[in-house]
């Protein structure tokens, strides 16, 4: 299992625990991530808002570089927003000749879109990876009730992502299940968290986060699990108002990779759990205690 890897800007900064957990888990289960040389930002929401050409070209450049350097490898990214932008460029280059021409002119190199763009969820839910995970889980997170949050961009739009179920996806739930934790059934798996507008329209975007957290808690979740550093950051960092507005306790937010890492034996320090805005280690420690291991994390 070898992939060209597009980390995305958040992985380099705010998603410190996510990054460390990714390195830990992928190493353990034998997924080799070949970081795309000199990758650039995918442009996120701003680039395509300003210009269609920029929105298509920014993600296409690292894809084209990956295909040039490692023509045999598919591309993987751990960020839902990057995933959506990369996949859209791939999709457009394949299906729309004019778009392909535009992209190649702007990035000044050929881009054939021969390789697929995958998310971590795609990779981890593959048969081989799932078997490897099962083999490497050494301590179970028994009874940890987690709400898997996929976000919008991992699943929509369907013709770009190819996701079979956009309302109640299950890939992450199954991965979480491998750690011994319990993925709860809840209703906001793919509702928008408003990350794109938390800077410029904060007052309307904050309640979106709160609604997601509230539904997770209403369905018995003790933690939210994500597959995206942007989702994680947004759901975690904007909890201040949540406590005030709902009177509910704050909610730890992990990436699915962190959960896997802990289940595979990583210590809190190894994956920098202390870096979370909302204290995260406690919930995991409690789950480990329940499993009877009594191992400190």
């Amino acid at each position, binding site marked *: 299992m070898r992939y060209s890897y597009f980390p995305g800007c958040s992985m380099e900064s705010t998603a410190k625990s996510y990054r460390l957990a990714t390195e830990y888990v992928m190493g353990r289960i034998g997924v080799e991530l070949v970081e795309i040389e000199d990758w650039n930002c995918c442009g996120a929401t701003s680039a395509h808002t300003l210009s269609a050409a920029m929105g298509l070209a920014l993600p296409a450049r690292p894809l084209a570089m990956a295909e040039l350097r490692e023509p045999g490898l598919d591309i993987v990214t751990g960020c839902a927003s990057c995933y959506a932008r990369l996949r859209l460029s791939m999709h457009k280059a394949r299906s729309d000749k004019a778009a392909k021409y535009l992209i190649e002119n702007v990035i000044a190199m050929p881009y054939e879109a021969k390789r697929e763009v995958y998310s971590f969820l795609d990779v981890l839910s593959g048969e081989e990876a799932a078997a490897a995970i099962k083999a490497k889980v050494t301590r179970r997170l028994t009874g940890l009730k987690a709400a898997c949050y996929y976000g919008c961009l991992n699943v929509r739009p369907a013709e770009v992502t190819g996701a079979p*179920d*956009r*309302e*109640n996806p299950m890939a992450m739930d199954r991965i979480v299940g491998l750690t011994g934790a319990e993925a709860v*059934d809840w*209703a*906001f798996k793919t509702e928008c968290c408003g990350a794109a507008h938390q800077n410029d329209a904060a007052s309307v975007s904050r309640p979106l986060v709160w609604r997601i957290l*509230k*539904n997770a808690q*209403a*369905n018995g979740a003790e933690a939210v699990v994500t597959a995206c550093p942007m989702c994680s950051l947004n759901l975690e960092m904007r909890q201040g108002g949540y406590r005030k507005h709902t009177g509910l306790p704050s909610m730890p937010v992990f990436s699915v990779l962190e959960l896997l890492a802990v289940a595979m034996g990583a210590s809190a320090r190894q994956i920098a759990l202390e870096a979370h805005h909302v204290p995260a280690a406690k919930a995991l420690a409690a789950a480990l205690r329940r499993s009877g291991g009594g191992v400190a994390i």
Partner: protein
Amino acid sequence: MSRIGVFVCHCGTNIASVVDPDRLTPAAREMPGVVYAADYRYMCSEPGQQMIKDSISEHGIDRIVIASCSPRMHETTFRKMLKGTSINPYMLEIANIREQCSWVHADKGRATEKAIGLVRMAVSKVSKNEPLYAQSIPITKRALVIGGGIAGIQAALDIADAGHEVVLLEREPSIGGKMAMLDKTFPTLDCSACISTPKMVDVGAHPNIRLMTYCEVESVSGYIGSFEVAIRQKARYVNHDICTGCGLCETKCPVKVDSEFNLGLSKRPAIYKLFPQAVPSKPVIDSESCRMLKDGKCGICAKLCPLGCIDYKDEARTVTESFGAIIMATGYQLVDWAAMYGEYGGGRYRDIISGLQFERTVNAAGPTEGHILRPSDGREPETVVIVKCVGSRDPKKGKSYCSRACCMYAAKHAHQILEKLPGSRVFIFYIDVRTPGKGYEEFYDQTRMDGAVYVRGRISKIYEEDGGLVCQGEDSLLGSQVRVRADMVILETAMEPSQGIEGLTSMLGAARDANNWIQEAHPKLRPVETQVGGVFLAGTCQGPKDIPDTVSQASAAAAKVIGLLNKSEMETSPMISAVERDKCSGCGACVGICPYKAITLQEIDDRLGAKRIKREVASVNSGLCQGCGACTAACRTGALDLLGFRNGQILEEVDALCL
């Protein structure tokens, strides 16, 4: 050489004022084969017809051309007239010099020229006409009605009352269909069971009706007047000849599975009647859940039965029956909304139920004895949201059509909730309210006055939170997003054709429309017929409709069948396809092109030089062929020809025009 008579009609001044008979008649007289030509003021009148008949015998005429109004007007009249003469009714052609000449042209000279041309075409064509003889096919005076819902019941009763024998076939263990599941019917709110069960009993007791429940159609052959239908009687494991329906067996059966009739809202045993008022009122054993039939361990019902009716060795049997006509009354089913609407929870929330499940809930004979209780905890709901158009008017996820009955039963459901649960609140989310029917708009008005809140907008998402269902949508009249916290949600889901419709229609050769409903022969003028002769339509198998429309259509279909069965034989048009076997190569191109499945390949004995061989040739079933001629144009060797419109006749017409 043919001896043709030409008769030119003036039609008062309708023709004669534009087309000059004094030029046309002499011109006709000069045409090849014409031995006599005359004109008259009204050819279709009694003296006109007499004149033609006299001329035929006087001049030894063997075929005629009448230059008059459209053949669509009087072709039949003149054919009937010829029946009393020495010549065959099909030795007639009509030149349409009124609708397609005198009425549409003003220039007398040019119109007369054209009329001469039209007469010449007809004369040339008639020279190639040949006597044709209508075949008569005997009619089996017996009708098959497929489907024992209210449509099938009504049709069967009407036909039986007219004195004809009917077999009413139903695949479930009881007749009754969807109507038997309903509580009350809009807009009059009369109890559904009170009006449908007496009809079911009538069916069971009618001397002219044979009820075949738990049966399916296995194959159909033949054509109008004489269909042969193979019917499979599924194994019941209960001898209905001696069973009295006492019901003892049902009480002790240890198996409990979801009740089909109550749509999973209650359980039933493995030996069961579909519902208490079932007709026939005798149980069957469901072989998939019976312990005795599955594992050979149990046998309680056999031990209990005082009459020894239980027969675990019972097997399915197939019988073949003959019918003169068939009525399709196969009905509808509701779409599987859970598979289509993830945004409504995809079936994960127990308190979201379908309209039909609500009918069972509110029905006094249902699982809650008529108390409106939500399935999850048996509590009375305080707030109910009703969502319309679930699966209807949704080309992306469901059906593009409107299911027609939902607006009204949504109003009915709201009314029932508000009546049974004083103080409750009902919100109906709708896109449009459609109430075209007698008393329907008034019923809708009443429901609003009862306090039902109509909210214009399609619900976007329903989710469970803190023990309630949050329904999120837009109030599009207000232009703002709304969330309603409900205790129970009713989805008024789309109708779709019953499962199995594809197989049944292809056995019959009947067409289905783009949505898989059975296609009527003509949407306006032949709404209860299919394009297959002798196969008729009743109820929702043709498209979504409510009970009044279903029953009307069933009676209409029955009237058609009665009309057919009242004859002992039926004349078929002789203008159908014919095969010249010597020319036929057996390629089969015609078989696929025929819309009526009238052509089959048949093996015949033939010679190739001195050798005896077997080869396949096309064979036209005169009962099925409707005379469209599509096969003749597709025939590569010219072996197929259409009687009355033979290639030779049409080519003569072409040649005559181009002279």
